[in-house]
C-alpha cells in the first residue's frame, strides 16, 4: 500500500539545519499493525505527519496506492487526509464547542456527506467505541479515555485506508490506555492498517511489526 524511499525531512532554523528524518525507506502493506518506537526527537512524529499528508518531505518518495503523494496539490492533500487517513492525536484534538456526535461528523462534513447519512454513521461509530449513551456530551463532559474513543470514532468516519496514532495513550492512565489499545487491535483485526507511535514497550510487543527510530533513521524493523 505504501512505499517510502529515501525519505528526508530537514528543518532550517537560522544558521543550523535539523535533520528530522534522514533517508528513511520502508513499505507498509494493507492490514499491517505497526508500532513505531524510539527516543524523543528521533523523528517518529515527523514520519507520521508525512504519512498522513500533513507535511511534505524535503526529499525522497512517498507512494500511496501508486500515487506520488509528494506531488499532490494542497487540495489533493486535504482530500487525501479526509478520505484515506484517520488521525488519532495524543491530545485528542476534539472541538470543545461541539458534541461528541458533531465531532465525529466533522470529517464527513468536509467530504460532503448528506447531514442525515452523516449523523447516522457518526452515531453508529460512537456505538462501536462504546459511547452510544454519550453522543450529546461535550468533550469537557467526558473522561480522557472517552475523549480518545470519540477521537478514534472520528478517525474512522470516512473509512480510511490507514489509521495513524501518535502516542494515543500518552495522556491516559495505563488502565484506560490498555482499553484504547485493545480498540486499535480490534480495528486491525477487522482489516484496518494501523500505525501507532508509542513509548510503551508492552504496546510495541503487542504489534505484529515493530520499527525503531534513532536520529531520523530506522534502526530496527522486525515482525514479531
Amino acid at each position, binding site marked *: 500500500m505504501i512505499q517510502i524511499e529515501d525519505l528526508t525531512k530537514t528543518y532550517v532554523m537560522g544558521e543550523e539545519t535539523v535533520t528530522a528524518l534522514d533517508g528513511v525507506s520502508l513499505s507498509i502493506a494493507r492490514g499491517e499493525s505497526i508500532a513505531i518506537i524510539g527516543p524523543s526527537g528521533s523523528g517518529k512524529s515527523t514520519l507520521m505527519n508525512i504519512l498522513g499528508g500533513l507535511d511534505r518531505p524535503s526529499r525522497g518518495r512517498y507512494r500511496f496506492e501508486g500515487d506520488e503523494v509528494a506531488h499532490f496539490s494542497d*487540495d489533493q492533500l486535504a482530500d487525501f*487526509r479526509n478520505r484515506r487517513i484517520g488521525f488519532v492525536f495524543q491530545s485528542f*484534538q476534539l472541538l470543545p464547542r461541539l458534541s461528541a456526535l458533531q465531532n465525529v461528523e466533522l470529517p464527513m462534513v468536509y467530504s460532503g456527506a448528506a447531514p442525515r447519512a452523516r449523523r447516522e454513521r457518526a452515531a453508529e461509530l460512537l456505538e462501536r467505541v462504546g459511547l452510544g449513551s454519550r453522543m450529546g456530551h461535550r468533550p469537557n463532559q467526558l473522561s480522557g479515555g472517552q475523549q480518545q474513543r470519540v477521537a478514534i470514532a472520528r478517525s474512522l468516519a470516512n473509512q480510511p485506508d490507514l489509521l495513524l496514532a501518535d502516542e494515543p495513550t500518552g495522556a491516559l492512565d495505563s488502565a484506560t490506555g490498555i482499553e484504547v489499545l485493545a480498540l486499535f487491535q480490534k480495528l486491525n483485526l477487522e482489516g484496518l492498517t494501523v500505525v501507532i507511535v508509542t513509548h510503551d514497550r508492552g504496546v510495541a510487543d503487542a504489534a505484529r511489526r515493530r520499527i525503531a527510530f534513532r536520529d531520523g533513521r530506522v534502526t530496527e524493523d522486525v515482525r514479531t
Partner: protein
Amino acid sequence: MSGASPTEIVRFASGAIIAHPLRSGLTSLGVVIGVAAVVMMTSIGLGAQKRVTDSISGLGSNLIIVSPLQPRTPGGVMGGAGSGQSLTDADTEAIQRQVEGAAAVAPSVTGGAQVTADGANWNTSIIGVTPEYLEARDLTIASGRMFEDRDARQGRKVAVLGPTVVTQLWGDADPIGKRIRIRGAPFEVIGVLGSKGQSSFGRDQDDLILSPLETVRSRIIGRRIKADSVQTIYVKAASEGELASVQEDIDSVVRAEHKIQPGEEDDFQTQNLASILEASKAAIGAFTVLLAAIAAVSLVVGGVGIMNIMLVAVTERTREIGLRMALGARRKDVLAQFALEAVVLSLFGGLIGLAIGLLGAAGIAAIGDWPFALPTWAIPVALGFSSLVGLVFGAYPAWRAARLDPIEALRRE
C-alpha cells in the same frame, strides 16, 4: 470531488458567533452605528429635498420671479435678492408690452403692519399688488371680490384678506364690508382669499392681506421706497414649454429697460421654479452626500473593529483551524468559514443599524414635522454595504487562517 457544502460553512461561521454573544454584539456595534448613521442621514436629506420640492411647487406653476439684485460692488460683494430697488413700474409695463407668452404679470411690494378691527389686532404682511396677482400666484377668492384696476387707480383703501387674518380678527363672522385699520388708515374689506394652508416649511400661507399696489406703496411702506419702485414681479408663463423663452425675454426686456450694456452685471435676477427647485435640490443633495460620507467613515471604523476581532479569533482558534485541516478541510473551506463569519457579523450589524437608522429618521421626522422619506433602495444598499465591509475587512484575517500550516497550527496551545 465534493467538499463541505455552503450551508455547513454558514453553520460553522454562525456557531462561532453565537458562542460569544457579547463579543459578537460589541464587534457588530461599529457597523450598527455606521449603517444607522448613513441611513438616517440619507433619509433626512431626502426628506429635506421632498419638503423643499413641495414648498417650491406650492409657489405656483410656470412662475418666474423677477427680483432686484444689487450689482457687484467694487469690493466684489453681491447684494441678496430684494436688497435693491432697481425694479419699477416701467419694468412691469415693459414686460407686459413686450414679452409674449406672459399670461400674467404681477408687480408687488410687501410691508408688515399691525391690523386692528373691532378691538382685535393682528400682525401680518400687507402685499401691494395688481389684480393679476391672483392668477400669477394661483390664488382664489373664497368670498367677496378681488379689487379691480379701477380701485387701484382711484387709490381706494380696499383689502382682500387671507383666511388666517379673518379668523384672528373676527373668528367665524363674515368680514365682507367690515372696516379695518392698517397703520391707522381705514380700509374696507372687500374679499377673502381661498385657503392655501401651510407651506411645507410650516409657514402659514393664509396670513396676509392684499391691497392695491399704489395704496400700499403710499400708505403702508411710505417714504422707505421710491414712489414707482416694486419689489418683486411675478410673471406667469402661459405654458410650461414657454417658461424658458419667457424668462429669456424678461431678461432682455429688463436689461434694455435698465440700459445694461452687454458684459455689465445685471441689477436684477429672474428665477423660475424649475431652476430654483433644481438648485435647492442640488444643494441639499450635495449636503446629503457629504453627511452620508461622514457617516460612512464610521462604517469603515466598524469594519476595522471586525477585522481586529477576526484576527484575534484566528489566533485563538489556530488549533481548531489546524484540526479542521487535518480532518480534510481545504484551504478554501477555512477561508470561507472565517470570511463568512466576518460577513455575518457585519450583516447582522447592518440589519440592526438599518432598523435603528429608519426608526431614528422616522422619529426626527415626527418631532421636526418633517416628511419621512424611506428610500427603498437604501435597504439593499445598506445590507449590501455591510456585507461588503465584512468581506473586505474579513478577507485578511480569513486569508491568514487559510494560510496556516496544519502541523504548526495543531501544535499551538
